[in-house]
């Protein structure tokens, strides 16, 4: 199968996965809710409002008809209104999604660098004390209950040492109200912007040039990012180590050594470069893990992102938010997996099935 056909098949499949998950979650909320109209309208709504919402979302029809209307509404920009926040779900997502993405990207970069470095070290020092220490470090971290790990870090660095803030993506006093891309649109008379970037606390502050806010955003990200990095730490270390061990015994490394190259040049320039190829396929999976992990991390650290939002909607049965949040996180994860599949397909033609 050609590459183009393979990629388009994967994209189509990803679309069906997202649709399938949406259908499952929608169906379950539908059978679980004794009176869906009250959920969609909010707990303190009047009889009239409930009636209105029932008609608006076609709540008297069977669930699959409702589902079709929901799908149509998603594409036209009406994601329902959250009874918890009393705001449209879409505006909540515009606010929360960029925060999570930024945190995930920061953690992703640090995690990949750290794990690669540890993988190289444990391959070079295979069987030695350092190798064993690294192995035990990640075996034990992986076995810690996730929120105990998060809270442990919170207690030590925030309450005991008082060096790092315990909650929120940014100091509210420094939070910016001047988004980088927001401009006045004379035709509609509204302020429009590029919300995906405008709502990223650190990136927006950097773009505007407000260093105090950028620093505050980074400092607030340290603890959540560290926790995310430690979740499932070690998978990449292991992979890099296996392929590094292979590479270090190969002919081209022996040739490089016999040319008189320094050990550093041999390890990083020759062996690591070739070992990175299999690791690229793990990147999508790693990013997906970070996004899924944000559910716990953001809830513990009150870091107001998508994970926090979904966590709150799970706790309060805020159905419109629950469906939207679940599907959005699914979408991000499915897209990361799609990137993995495409990387596989490009790098290894045998997998194109």
């Amino acid at each position, binding site marked *: 199968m050609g590459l183009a056909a393979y990629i388009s098949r994967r994209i189509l499949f990803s679309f069906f996965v997202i649709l399938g998950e949406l259908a499952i979650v929608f169906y379950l909320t539908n059978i679980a809710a*004794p009176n869906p109209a009250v959920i969609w309208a909010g707990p303190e709504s009047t009889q009239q409002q409930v009636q209105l919402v029932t008609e608006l979302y076609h709540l008297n029809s069977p669930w699959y008809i409702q589902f079709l209307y929901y799908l149509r509404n998603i594409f036209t920009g009406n994601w329902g209104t959250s009874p918890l926040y009393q705001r449209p779900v879409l505006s909540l997502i515009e606010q929360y999604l960029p925060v999570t993405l930024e945190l995930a990207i920061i953690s992703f970069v640090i995690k990949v660098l750290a794990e690669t470095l540890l993988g190289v070290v444990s391959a070079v020092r295979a069987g030695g004390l350092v190798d064993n220490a690294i192995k035990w470090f990640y075996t034990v971290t992986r076995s810690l209950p996730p929120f105990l790990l998060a809270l442990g870090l919170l207690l030590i660095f925030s309450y005991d040492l008082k060096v790092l803030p315990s909650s929120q993506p940014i100091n509210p006093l420094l939070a910016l109200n001047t988004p980088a891309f927001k401009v006045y649109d004379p035709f509609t008379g509204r302020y429009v912007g590029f919300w995906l970037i405008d709502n990223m606390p650190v990136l927006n502050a950097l773009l505007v040039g407000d260093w105090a806010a950028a620093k505050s955003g980074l400092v607030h990200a340290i603890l959540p990012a560290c926790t995310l990095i430690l979740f499932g730490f070690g998978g990449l270390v292991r992979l890099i180590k296996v392929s590094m061990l292979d590479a270090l015994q190969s002919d081209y490394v022996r040739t490089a050594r016999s040319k008189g190259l320094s050990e550093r040049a041999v390890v990083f320039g020759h062996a690591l470069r070739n070992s990175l190829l299999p690791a690229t396929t793990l990147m999508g999976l790693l990013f997906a893990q970070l996004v899924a992990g944000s559910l716990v991390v953001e809830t513990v650290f009150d870091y107001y992102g998508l994970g926090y939002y979904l966590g709150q909607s799970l706790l309060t049965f805020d159905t419109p938010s629950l469906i939207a949040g679940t599907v959005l996180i699914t979408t991000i994860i499915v897209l990361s997996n799609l990137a993995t599949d495409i990387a596989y397909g490009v790098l290894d033609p045998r997998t194109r099935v």
Partner: protein
Amino acid sequence: MLTGIALLVVLYAGALIAYVDPHLITRYNPDALDFAQANSPPSLSHLFGTDIEGRDVFTRVVYALPLDSLIPFAIVGFGVAVGLSLGTVAGYLGGAVEEIVLRVTDMFFAFPSIVLALAIASILGATSHGGRLYYSMVALMIVSWPFYTRLARAQVLVLRNAPYVKVAEAAGYGRFSVIRRHIVPHILPLVTAYASLDMGTTLLTYSVFAFFGLGAQPPTPELGRMVYDGLNALPGNWWWSLFPGIVLTLFALGFSLVGEGLRDILDPRLRGAA
């Protein structure tokens, strides 16, 4: 791996004793309130301290052992049973059956398991408070099997052309009998290795459910729930959540050490990496 086996043996022996006769290990009642002794830190009479109502934390940990040692077995056991049957049958029969099974598996495999499981458990648990212990397990079961289907099918593709399978077919054994007697026994060791790795993570995932009000409901003693309930008291009464957390970690550590040990023995590509 020996460390892992030792850990699991001790924990499961403890669970067994706790199930048969908890009074061999502890002299307290897990639900007995004793306000005179409330909030006392760990001491000789209360090894893990007591909680706000004076209940002995050590006793509650002991009473939680049977449930917590069964949760991963129930969930992963379900996943292995379903995944192994679907995977072997699909891989062995091939054709349309394989295609259908694979597409459905791929679909479930692509779901982000914890997010979907949390959503399912939360929605199902919305109407019934008491059922949350089971709904959370069901939710994790629903997302547990696709991995094993893929693993089993990949192995069957290798084994299908093995000489002893060909011999068994030539000897006139039926298809399902070949699968059951000649293929499954050869896949089982590798599946066990991955299942062991999976059990540790599953138990930890289940403990996350407590955080969102799902999973076991009080006063049922369950380790994840106890860790969560103790979190509100941090940093003051650290013993409420630390000790159940340590026991939970030991479970996960045991499963993951055993799993990694088995995998290194059975999967030669990874040998030397551990």
